[in-house]
């Protein structure tokens, strides 16, 4: 069963989403990868405002392919999240409540998720053509010079993700594997 989640996700809502739950996200999310995170965190350090409201924001780690004529966006699957680990604790402290990517996170990120109330989702890596059909609007809001890595505001409908790590630190990458290995015994 999939859980429908209307964005934005408040800190309270974040605490109700549990590891292992399949979710369909609808509403506004922002995109950022390595280069954009570096700039965003530099702004945070200087105490300057970000180019979008980070409070209760969900950030999708994605660098889409260019849209073909008639398309909203090109293929748009997740990139590997650990490269954002250096930046995520600061983003969470600033108000971010949701992250969408794929792959493992650092203990520091998980500690920040627990402290503030944030959730880490995975979208299916390598399913960029499928995921792009859930993106209904896309516009660049910052760092256009970064090309695929620019910050985009996306409106998504029923974007399929799985909660991998919840605000209590439960981790599907550990529990899913254990559950499968148990079936072999």
């Amino acid at each position, binding site marked *: 069963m999939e859980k429908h989640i209307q964005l934005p996700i408040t800190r309270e809502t974040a605490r109700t989403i549990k590891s292992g739950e399949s979710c369909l996200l609808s509403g506004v999310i922002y995109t950022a990868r390595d*280069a954009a995170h570096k700039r965003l965190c530099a702004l945070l350090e200087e105490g300057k405002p970000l180019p979008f409201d980070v409070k209760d924001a969900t950030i999708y780690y*994605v*660098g*889409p*392919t*260019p*849209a*073909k004529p008639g*398309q909203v966006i*090109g*293929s*748009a*699957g997740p*990139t*590997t999240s*650990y490269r954002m680990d250096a930046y995520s604790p600061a983003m969470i402290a600033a108000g971010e409540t949701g992250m969408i990517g*794929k*792959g*493992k996170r650092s203990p520091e990120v998980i500690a920040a998720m627990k402290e503030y109330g944030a959730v880490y989702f*995975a979208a*299916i*890596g*390598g*399913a*960029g*053509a*499928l995921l*792009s*059909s859930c993106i209904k609007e896309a516009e660049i809001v910052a760092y256009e010079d*970064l*090309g*695929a*890595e620019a910050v985009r505001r996306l409106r998504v409908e029923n974007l*399929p993700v*799985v909660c991998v790590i919840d605000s209590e630190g439960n981790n*599907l*990458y550990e*529990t*899913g*594997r*254990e*559950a*499968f*290995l148990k*079936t*072999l015994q």
Partner: protein
Amino acid sequence: MREIQASVLTDAIRDLCIEANCVLPKDMQARIGQARKDEPFPTAQGILDKIIENYGIAEANTVPICQDTGVCCVFLKIGQDVHIEGDLRAAVDEGVRRGYGEGYLRKSVVKDPLRRVNTGDNTPAMLYTELVPGDRIELTVAPKGFGSENMSRLAMLKPSDGVEGVKSFILKTVEEAGPNPCPPIVVGVGLGGTFDKAAYLAKKALMRSTDVRNADPYYADLEAELLEKINALGIGPQGFGGRTTALAVNIEWMPTHIAGLPVAVNINCHVTRHKTVVL
């Protein structure tokens, strides 16, 4: 001596960039389809269904299977009786430039590793050339995503580590990669040679169809054994648990020094893309 205009390569590379990025090779489709049939874990079945749906959409609409359309690896096996008229390097990069531009593919190359300014056209290609007998050119274009490339490893083992040392290094590499390289993966292994040749062989191993096992029965058995051991790790599609962690293990080997046992593991994702033509 047969003459081939460099522009012929440009046109072919342009087309192959687009096709390789939008159409998953039939052998990979067969491996994923079979894995879905063999997968007992419900979560993993669901993920494999989505992966199959995704490459179907990509092929039907000529859109990239994955947004990481990669660095463009171009392999040229050039017959020694061929003369290429024109600048080969420029012709290859022009093909990549046109393929990635006209095909709406992502430009994912930075000009230098530290200052990191995007080149804007996905050039330069990673170009590999090999001289072979004959008067033809075999051209392979293989877009390589970096989610999986980043999880690749190389070790200079001791001869005394033997086959057990090789196996444990490969398993450790896959285990540590876990969900990061978008499993189910294809594992390319290079054994022997020198430090650099081992890495090259591992990349080359990923160019071999997963329908084809190593010609040497000893290494074909090793490929099968490693695939079974990797799929007993339980990582599963996307790392959510399951049987299907790898779709194939391809090993390439060559002679090496009496003092060494180089082993390189080049990981590729379920979107293992390559397309070959002979000119």
